[in-house]
């Protein structure tokens, strides 16, 4: 409460206004790689599609445009095993036998049903005609519990006398069979009464143990299955006789990944290495084939020569051809429905490159309606790029002649007029702008405040994306399979003004891949240099002034334990070599947990190691970080109340290492250590140890301070420690930082208790460093919080001194609360935030941030000190103009009245 009352002092907290929602921020929902999908059972076009993905996300997607209606990250302790969509409800059944009924469009949980004992789920089957789902669970006695989920009624639980392995439902005669084994390992079948769910006597099918693998129900009452011994057999469900039909077809019986029953009109299909045969041995198709059971019947899809799919509907007359981008389709789901006496198909396909396709097909036309890029769920690298300015501004203004200046001004005026006429023609001039009010044009050129950016993403499966930060549209996508599972690094080569070449270096299974990317168009060229192949620790690029083309690469690699080697790819001229030889390098080897520092020699291609910092094997390194290269420090000291100045420790080479103990169970042995090193000398300038603490530990370094978080295992809470480094009161006169003669800093440190579990830490940046810093905290609960750094000031005192107020130091409060208006992501639940990327804009007050989660991206702006350099977006231009015009009018009116008065007076 005391803290809250202190808040007005820091009236610079800039929270979002409600009407700004969606204008300056956006969220890109990613679902992940689909495992299960379900279409509406009804004989009509599906509006929503239920999806469950490998990222443990359950979602409902609009069939219209692929937008996400809702998504829910499921608890870690359960996986969705079965997914159904019937009677306007999405039903998910999780591993513990927990059934949830969701509203497909709003995502409201209608009800959640679970048994008294949540043991392992064995199998589920659905009986459409009765709208029930039957599931078998294992129980302690070794037999099975049978759960019957009824839509509008309570859960029915009963016990089976066998250990159920498979449940088979027969829609035509409403029968449920439980197949499994008895305590004596005999293969048995038990029928379930549909009305009262009582079990009928057990039929022994075989004395030997048979474990079903895949099965199909043939409409003549036979159940055909393969077992774990690769034998194919059939059971007559009416009398329980089992026959071995391996002689007929020794193939795998085709089943759907969702374990539903396949209906084949009167026979089953066998799949032998991709070749589908019917029962009689006739080859149906020489290629990959998928068979789907829908409510109306069986739909087949077969792969044709051009990687397209030929679909055959239920009535097997009309076929439709669809192509899904040429990439190999991993899974396919389909739905058939009748509309205007015609059969229509809806197809969902997931291809190997991580794209989800949705297509509509009928006898007349088949088109891909929408696609979703799901590979964005696994991102390996993200970088935010400034857009290039208009062509006219690419030249250096200092070289302009007068006529050139006039030309450029005319060109800019011309482009402005063009934009205006375009708006006039399209009629969008008078329309209220939906997007960011500060960004004047939606074209891909640098705007006035440099707020419009391009987000470059490399995914783990080797896709490259260019995303427009204004509209969240994917501008381009490229597939570079060579970058799959690579540690990628983006090198920006300082080329001519504003135009820099972008190079991607991938460290892929210890092989360096080198690409040149045009960031605006996404065109990619692989540079086929002789690349080193061994343990690569770090790659840097060197531009020589004499050579054109790709810059040379410095590849640091591990030669031996504790020894670093150097390889150079490309040419380096003497001027560049001279400069680079004077530069100190540091690198981190994550395998041996060691940091190395030193200088390089270009001629002998060696790395002269001057210091090594070895983290003991008993510790696990959580993070190694340094202040961002773009970090600018504005003020060199902190004025105190006695008018003296406390000088900041301005070392630009601080490396922070955060390590935790490997201890998992013994509380007393757990700890988290933070080491702060000088990057030139390798000297430890400060270290702190937190006992009874463990990961997840995160750290952020900026200016002369660092903030790190860890889990206090003893107190069951997340704690945050803030450290600041000061030199003392002596004002230095140095123009540059000298690491060799620098004295040890004075570290001030304070710890706080965080009310949220922290998953990532970042810091805001600005062009000049004038704006106050805010620490960007990504929480496990799916929020991004912008916390002004005054809250993390280590000089906050428990008993405040009278001078604290003058210096702007709040009294110390152990608990660090995150008020809701500090939450940049407001009421949205983003899911655990893995990382927050920050980009500097042309406005000193503002920086843009990109939050990364497993389930999407979140983009917004932050003003840590308020928007002091730009008019507020609610600035009332209308009111100001009306008042101004009013005053001018009133003045003239006064003049007229005065003249009239004068004339009257003179008349007297």
């Amino acid at each position, binding site marked *: 409460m005391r803290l809250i009352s202190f808040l007005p002092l820091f009236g610079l907290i800039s929270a979002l*206004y409600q009407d700004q929602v969606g204008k300056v921020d956006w969220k890109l929902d990613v679902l992940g790689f689909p495992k299960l999908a379900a279409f509406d059972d009804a004989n009509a076009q599906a509006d929503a599609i239920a999806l469950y993905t490998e990222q443990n996300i359950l979602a409902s997607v609009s069939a219209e445009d692929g937008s996400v209606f809702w998504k829910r990250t499921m608890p870690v302790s359960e996986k969705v095993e079965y997914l159904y969509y019937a009677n306007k409800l999405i039903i998910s059944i999780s591993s513990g036998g927990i059934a949830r009924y969701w*509203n497909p469009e709003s995502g409201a949980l209608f009800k959640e049903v679970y048994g008294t004992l949540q043991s392992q789920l064995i199998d589920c089957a659905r009986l459409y005609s009765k709208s029930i789902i039957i599931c078998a669970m294992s129980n302690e006695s070794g037999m099975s519990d049978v759960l019957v989920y009824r839509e509008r009624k309570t859960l029915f639980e009963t016990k089976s006398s066998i250990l159920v392995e498979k449940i088979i439902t027969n829609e035509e005669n409403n029968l449920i069979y439980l197949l499994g084994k008895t305590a004596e390992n005999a293969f048995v079948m038990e029928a379930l009464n549909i009305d009262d769910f009582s079990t009928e006597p057990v039929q022994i099918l075989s004395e030997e143990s048979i474990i079903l693998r895949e099965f199909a129900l043939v409409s003549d009452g036979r159940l055909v299955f393969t077992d774990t011994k690769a034998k194919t057999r059939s059971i007559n469900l009416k009398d329980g006789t089992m026959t071995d039909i391996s002689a007929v077809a020794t193939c795998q019986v085709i089943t759907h990944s969702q374990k539903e029953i396949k209906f084949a009109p009167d026979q089953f299909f066998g799949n032998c290495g991709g070749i589908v045969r019917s029962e009689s041995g006739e080859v149906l198709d020489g290629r990959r084939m998928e068979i789907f059971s829908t409510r109306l019947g069986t739909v087949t899809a077969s792969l044709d020569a051009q990687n397209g799919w030929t679909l055959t509907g239920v009535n097997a007359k009309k076929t439709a051809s669809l192509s899904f981008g040429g990439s190999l389709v991993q899974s396919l789901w389909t739905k058939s429905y009748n509309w205007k006496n015609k059969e229509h198909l809806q197809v969902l396909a997931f291809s190997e490159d991580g794209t989800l396709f949705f297509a509509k097909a009928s006898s007349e036309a088949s088109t891909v309606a929408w696609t979703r890029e799901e590979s964005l769920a696994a991102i390996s690298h993200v970088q935010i790029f400034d857009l290039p300015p208009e062509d006219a501004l690419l030249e250096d203004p200092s070289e302009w002649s007068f006529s050139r200046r006039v030309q450029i001004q005319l060109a800019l005026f011309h482009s402005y007029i063009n934009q205006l006429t375009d708006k006039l023609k399209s009629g969008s001039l008078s329309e209220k702008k939906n997007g960011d009010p500060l960004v004047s044009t939606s074209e891909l050129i640098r705007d006035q405040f440099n707020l419009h950016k391009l987000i470059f993403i490399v995914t783990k499966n080797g896709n490259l994306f260019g995303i427009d930060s204004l509209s969240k549209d994917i501008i381009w996508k490229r597939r570079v399979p060579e970058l799959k599972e690579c540690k990628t690094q983006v090198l920006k080569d300082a080329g001519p003004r504003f135009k820099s070449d972008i190079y991607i270096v991938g460290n892929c299974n210890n092989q360096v891949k080198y690409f040149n990317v045009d960031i605006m168009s996404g065109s990619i060229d692989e540079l086929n240099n002789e690349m080193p192949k061994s343990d690569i620790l770090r790659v840097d690029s060197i531009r020589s002034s004499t050579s054109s083309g790709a810059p040379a690469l410095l590849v640091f690699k591990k030669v031996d334990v504790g020894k670093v080697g150097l390889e150079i790819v490309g040419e380096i001229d003497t001027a560049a070599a001279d400069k680079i030889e004077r530069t100190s390098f540091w690198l981190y080897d994550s395998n041996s947990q060691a940091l190395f520092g030193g200088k390089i020699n270009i001629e002998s291609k060696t790395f002269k190691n001057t210091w090594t910092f070895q983290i003991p094997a008993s510790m696990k390194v959580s993070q190694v970080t340094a202040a961002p290269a773009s970090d600018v420090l504005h003020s060199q000291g902190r004025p105190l109340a006695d008018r003296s100045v406390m000088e900041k420790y301005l070392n630009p080479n601080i490396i922070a290492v955060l390590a935790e103990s490997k201890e998992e169970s013994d509380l007393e042995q757990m700890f988290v250590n933070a080491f702060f090193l000088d990057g030139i000398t390798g000297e430890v300038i400060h270290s702190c140890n937190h006992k009874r603490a463990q990961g997840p530990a995160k750290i952020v370094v900026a200016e002369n301070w660092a903030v790190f978080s860890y889990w206090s295992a003893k107190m*069951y809470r997340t704690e945050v420690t803030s450290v600041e480094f000061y030199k003392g009161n002596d004002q230095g006169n140095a123009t540059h930082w000298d690491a060799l003669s620098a004295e040890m800093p004075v570290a001030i440190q304070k710890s706080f208790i965080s009310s949220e579990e922290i998953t990532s830490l970042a810091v805001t940046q600005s062009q000049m460093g004038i704006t106050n810093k805010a620490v960007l905290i990504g929480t496990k609960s799916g929020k991004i919080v912008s916390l002004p750094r005054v809250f993390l000031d280590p000089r906050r005192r428990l008993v405040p001194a009278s001078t604290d107020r003058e210096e702007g130091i709040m009294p110390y409060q152990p608990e660090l609360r995150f008020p809701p208006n500090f939450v940049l992501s407001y009421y949205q639940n983003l899911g655990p935030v893995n990382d927050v990327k920050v980009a500097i804009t042309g406005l000193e007050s503002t920086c843009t941030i990109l939050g990364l989660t497993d389930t999407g991206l979140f983009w917004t702006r932050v003003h840590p000190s308020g928007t002091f350099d730009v008019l507020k977006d609610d600035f009332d231009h209308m009111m100001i103009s009306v008042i101004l015009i009013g005053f001018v009018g009133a003045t003239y009116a006064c003049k007229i009245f005065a003249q009239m008065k004068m004339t009257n007076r003179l008349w007297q």
Partner: protein
Amino acid sequence: MLGKLLLSLFAFAHSAVTVTIEGQLSSKYAHMDAEAYSGVEIQLDNGYKGFVQSNGQFAVHNVKPGSYILKVASPKLTYHSVRVDINAQGKIRYRRLNILTLKEVDPINIMDLQPIEQTQWFQKREQFNVLDTLKSPMVLIMILPMVVLFLLPKLMDMQDPELKKEMEEQMKTMNKGGNVPDMSELMSSFFGGEQPKRAPKKGVKQN
């Protein structure tokens, strides 16, 4: 009996006991709306979580013994966090979260979790309001002297001839000293082209 005991002991040793945390959100703000709890999640540490049904009930399944913080993540309302302690026997204790200490026990009813307030995610826009302008100190500085000038003389007893005389005298001295210019003249002298001649007499009323 002994077997059962042994079995349960065996279960503890492997911490196979898992519990389901069941609770209910107070329907105070829900107005029995089926969508009221859409998007509300019950979050526990270590990724355990539950979803809220349309009647406000929730369940977090398969939770292992330990101490957890239960949070209600709601887009609209703020709830108290709950410290959940589950012992090896699967017994659950709920208490209001006090992040500063583990010892304090402030029980909370998990079957009726009350929201504290509506969450203020946003800043309020400043809107033009007549009352606000009146509160402004500048306006007060202007209005108070007016009150003194116009209202105070009226409050005084005007029937008293002595006072009246005194006041009149005062007014006379004031008028002598201050040549308060006419507003319209001031304006016209500022904006008008020519400097108008000052009227011989001032404050003459026209008919």
